[in-house]
């Protein structure tokens, strides 16, 4: 611009009057040029500051205020609820913990209502972790595979119905899965159990003790498989949406470098979707850790910690609470709540670990591209 910069007349107090006079044109020693006479007035009206001599103030806009209050309020509410749950659990649990004559972490049996009370979470912790690990080991790879198939391989006519089906599976209530597991899965896993015992028995973990071979596989491994089926839809659904978001331009960049379809997916889609897949897995893991009815209908519980995962028996936190809460007395309830608190803590720890993994590679996330 080579025209002299327009300035606000000095002799009048426009909206920017005092401010402008102090270091506007005066500092540059230019002769003031008249603005169109109606402009300052129009501007002043637009900003709602007609005749005001002070510099313009920030105006409160009602929408911003409401939104800020609402979002801040819900954030605080969430924290309060979390804290309330933790405090409630801790307070309720403390009663039984102080009277426990066993060791909370290492005792196998669960007799909190006996005199003296003896109980521990060793079996439950083991069962919960093992069944969840089996479920994740099966579900995550399969879910990622299905999600990739829907988002990048299947022709659209096929992808749509499959995606719909998967969404539908996510909505099936867990008791239905439980019934199906007990009535269909358990009888049909006989063969697989025997086969694994024969060929994978050397791993010790995937084997049956001599005494129980041939009994129905109401064991942690079957629970793991059932949980895998239950969490598959949610992991698939979320991963699919994330994979679909992979930017077309990065996929094309990979293809133009001479990538095959699978290489393109490995270069441009999977790394992009990684945080999303982790989050999806956490959703699934949360469900697997807390699943109650499906586990209760399939597992034949016992208070033995058995490293033979194909032996019937074991238990999980949620299943144990569901099974014992009804006939528990005061101390029994308090002990069950203590075990619930442990489940809560485990879930928090796992989630924190996942957050950490995602955050560590944040600058490579592609979120700012």
């Amino acid at each position: 611009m080579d025209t002299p910069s327009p300035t606000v007349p000095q002799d009048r107090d426009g909206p920017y009057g005092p401010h402008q006079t102090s270091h506007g044109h005066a500092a540059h020693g230019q002769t003031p040029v008249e603005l169109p006479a109606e402009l300052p007035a129009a501007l002043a009206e637009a900003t709602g500051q007609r005749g005001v001599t002070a510099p313009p103030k920030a105006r409160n806009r009602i929408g911003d205020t409401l939104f800020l209050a609402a979002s801040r309020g819900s954030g605080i509410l969430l924290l309060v609820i979390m804290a309330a749950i933790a405090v409630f659990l801790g307070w309720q649990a403390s009663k039984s913990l102080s009277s426990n004559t066993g060791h909370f972490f290492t005792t196998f049996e669960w007799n909190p209502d006996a005199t003296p009370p003896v109980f521990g979470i060793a079996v439950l912790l083991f069962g919960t972790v093992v069944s969840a690990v089996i479920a994740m080991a099966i579900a995550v790879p399969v879910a990622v595979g299905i999600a990739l198939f829907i988002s990048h391989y299947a022709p659209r006519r096929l992808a749509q119905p499959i995606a719909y089906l998967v969404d539908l599976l996510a909505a099936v209530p867990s008791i239905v899965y439980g019934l199906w597991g007990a009535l269909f899965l358990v009888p049909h896993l006989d063969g697989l159990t025997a086969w694994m015992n024969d060929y994978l028995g050397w791993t010790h973990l995937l084997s049956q003790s001599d005494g129980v071979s041939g009994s129905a596989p109401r064991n942690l491994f079957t629970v793991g498989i059932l949980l895998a089926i239950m969490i598959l839809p949610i992991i698939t659904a979320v991963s699919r949406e994330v994979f679909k978001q992979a930017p077309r331009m990065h996929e094309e960049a990979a293809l133009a470098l001479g990538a095959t379809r699978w290489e393109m997916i490995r270069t441009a889609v999977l790394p992009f979707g990684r945080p999303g897949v982790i989050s999806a897995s956490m959703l699934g893991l949360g469900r697997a850790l807390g699943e109650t009815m499906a586990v209760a209908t399939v597992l034949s519980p016992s208070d033995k910690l058995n490293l033979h995962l194909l032996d019937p028996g074991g238990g999980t936190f949620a299943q144990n609470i569901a099974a014992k809460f009804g006939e528990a007395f005061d101390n029994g309830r308090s002990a069950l709540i203590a075990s619930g608190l442990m489940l809560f803590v485990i879930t928090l720890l796992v989630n924190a670990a996942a957050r950490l993994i995602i955050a560590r590679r944040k600058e490579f996330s592609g979120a700012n591209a």
Partner: protein
Amino acid sequence: MAKRIDVSGLSAYYGSFKGIEDISMTIEPRSVTAFIGPSGCGKSTFLRTLNRMHEVIPGARVEGKVMLDDENLYGPGVDPVAVRRTVGMVFQRPNPFPTMSIYDNVVAGLRLAGVRKKPLLDEVVEKSLKGANLWNEVKDRLNKPGAGLSGGQQQRLCIARAIAVEPQVLLMDEPCSALDPISTLAIEDLIGELKSRFTIVIVTHNMQQAARVSDRTAFFNLAGVGQPGRLVEIDDTQRIFSNPSVQATEDYISGRFG
């Protein structure tokens, strides 16, 4: 290294829509050929048929022949993946992989080709980044994300990524359209250097740029909305800009268009 491209009777479709029709031209090795023409006349479409990137769009197909020296890119049994390794491409919007470091971006093509030896990769990274005039700016932060560079740097990173695999032809679709004049000049200089090693095809809307960097210029046009784009003429850049043989070319270049 650099190869001649000989296109004959090439048409490209998006589903039932014909994007470009019956294009024939020869692109000389070790030269820069510029494509100019109004928006929507099929420059990008044609460019993408030269490395078989057109067909990655669902429903898109190509008819005709593209000879790279004496191999037909659309011949039976030709692997499009192999074609894309010999004909590199730089896109209009800089698109380094956001999940990769600068280093990994440059060697992405080599890794795809199965090169794993670290010393070799190191050497290629340095050579390619120097070739793309980016080395001095990034040599101290090769492990930082590629998406953390400025737009012009990102585009040069994409050029480094494309030349790292030593292609025979380099296709550039409006490589400077998102860049400031200084980055643009840097990339134009780079094109001048690269042409001693590669056959370069560049799409541009900038007449001065076409005049500055190219040896030959092709003008594309389309008869009307919904009509396929066609090649109007291709000639030495000097002739196109001083004395084109078709009136439409002159009208377009002098801004008296439509």
